[in-house]
């Protein structure tokens, strides 16, 4: 059996009396893409920083690349790539100097580094902007530069904290494409996100985090099969009386959720259920039949929506 790249047991992070990460257990295996899905404040970034050896753990066990990150910080960080939630590029340096200087922090020899910088500029599609100031780049370009920067030391494990938050769909797909390429080349990915689409796109396995705890773990498919049905019928109501309507759909689906403006009916056959709704004489303003997603898993597990 291969040894996990990251192993956490009863891992805890406290800030004063506040418990940000509350006894979580997980393993990340070599070559996989592992995700942390959760709403704001779930403790995703705190977990990533502990793994990245930039935040000491408050309790439990943590091993990264076989050692304790708190004891071997520089050695662990030398083999990691980190894409932080907030870009922290060096605004006093040009695009290419950002990569070059970062490589120097890893002790990469100058000549080798110059070659590496050229490769990374191509990878991030930023070769034409090499001499520009970082602040002149668009959000998507900055994000690509941050990802390129995290690869300068050819990391075995890449930590991506909300890699595509704030990007438009096109920029997001370009980034996903880059991350798929990295994964194919054997890099292990750890991704946090609060987009279920991103988790479904990128992750082989993921944990759903909520309030510092792990609510569920598995592949996106497994989680959907385990916690929700195959399809969902969404009934939207105009007068915001969805909760009051909940009793009227009793028995139409094995499980229902009532949101402020919608009812969600979890069912194996959406079209059949939609027809049954119509037969009862209900008149929602909109009926949508769709496949269940991780968003539904999250709702089922916590009773709350992921992105509000």
């Amino acid at each position, binding site marked *: 059996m291969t040894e996990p790249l990251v192993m956490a047991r009863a891992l805890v992070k406290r800030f004063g009396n506040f418990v940000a990460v509350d006894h979580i257990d997980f393993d990340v295996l070599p070559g996989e893409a592992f995700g942390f899905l959760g709403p704001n404040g779930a403790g995703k970034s705190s977990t990533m920083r502990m793994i990245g050896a*930039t935040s000491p753990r408050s309790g439990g066990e943590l091993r990264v690349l076989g050692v304790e990150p708190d004891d071997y*910080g*520089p050695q662990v*960080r030398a083999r990691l790539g980190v894409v932080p939630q907030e870009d922290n590029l*060096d605004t006093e340096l040009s695009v290419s*100097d950002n990569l070059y200087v970062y490589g*120097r922090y*890893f*002790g990469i020899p100058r000549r080798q580094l110059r070659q590496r910088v050229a490769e990374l500029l191509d990878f991030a599609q930023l070769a034409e902007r090499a001499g520009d100031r970082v602040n002149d780049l668009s959000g998507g370009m900055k994000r690509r530069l941050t990802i390129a920067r995290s690869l300068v*030391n050819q990391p075995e494990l890449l930590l991506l904290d909300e890699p595509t938050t704030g990007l438009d769909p096109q920029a997001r797909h370009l980034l996903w494409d880059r991350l798929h390429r990295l994964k194919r080349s054997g890099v292990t990915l750890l991704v946090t996100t609060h987009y279920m689409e991103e988790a479904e796109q990128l992750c082989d396995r993921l944990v759903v985090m909520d309030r510092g705890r792990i609510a569920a773990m598995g592949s996106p498919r497994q989680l959907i099969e385990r916690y929700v049905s195959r399809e969902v019928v969404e009934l939207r109501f105009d007068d915001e009386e969805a909760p009051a309507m909940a009793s009227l759909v009793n028995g139409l689906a094995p499980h229902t959720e009532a949101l402020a403006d919608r009812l969600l009916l979890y069912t194996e056959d959406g079209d059949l259920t939609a027809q049954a709704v119509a037969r009862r004489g209900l008149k929602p303003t909109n009926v949508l039949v769709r496949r269940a997603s991780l968003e539904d898993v999250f709702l089922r597990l916590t009773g709350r929506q992921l992105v509000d």
Partner: protein
Amino acid sequence: MSSPAPRVGVTVASPRFARPAALVGRNLMVQKAVPYVWATGLVEPVFYLLSIGVGIGHLVGKMPGPNGAEVPYAAFVAPALLASSAMNGAVYECTTNIFDKLHWAKIYRGVVATPLTPRDIAVAEVASAVVRSALYSAAFLVAMAVLSGTRSPWALLALPCAVLVGLAFAACGFMSACYMRSWTDFDKVMLVQMPLFLFSATFYPLSVFPRWLQLLVEAAPLYQGVAACRELCLGQPSWDIIGHLAYLAALAGAAMAISTRRATKLLTP
């Protein structure tokens, strides 16, 4: 259990020098891009020397030197300007700059994700300030030899002495930057720095003060640098210099230790 072996092409630079050296390299790269910063640092103390040493020197005439014998005012004040400009340069370099990198530009957030530690960052920033301060001091010594007629070979030792002043105050500057919460806190740094500059026997001998103020000044950090540089530049060294240097070295060491602890808290919460 095996300790992680770095992959080909990635060396974990040896802890003592190589890691901070990469950040010093980064700072030099940035500074090369703004030559006027270098120019002002060189020109400012020379202006002081001209206006105060030579200008006011005409009115004041002579002053008693460390051993009691009278010396021209320019020769009296120049070594004090050497020490104070080493202080001012180092404090300026460290406080604003470091505060910006910590809280606004957030540059260090990226740096601590590499093999560098908060301690490496403190060492590198202080070293960068000291390198610059040393260049200014060397240039000032040359100007001093030309303008105020410094001739003693002892004056050459005033350079390492000024560098030590730079080191001690750069470390204090880094430390203050780590404790500052907003830009207005710089006023508090000025509140310490100004009186040090004005009262450390910079412009007149200690003997003009009442006894209680003399004791206070003798305990202040810049006074150590002023007294040591003055004795050396006037060619009248005494054993007191050892005490002055030890004071500055201890200050530098203490400020570095506190800086490292504080920076670790801020950067790796």
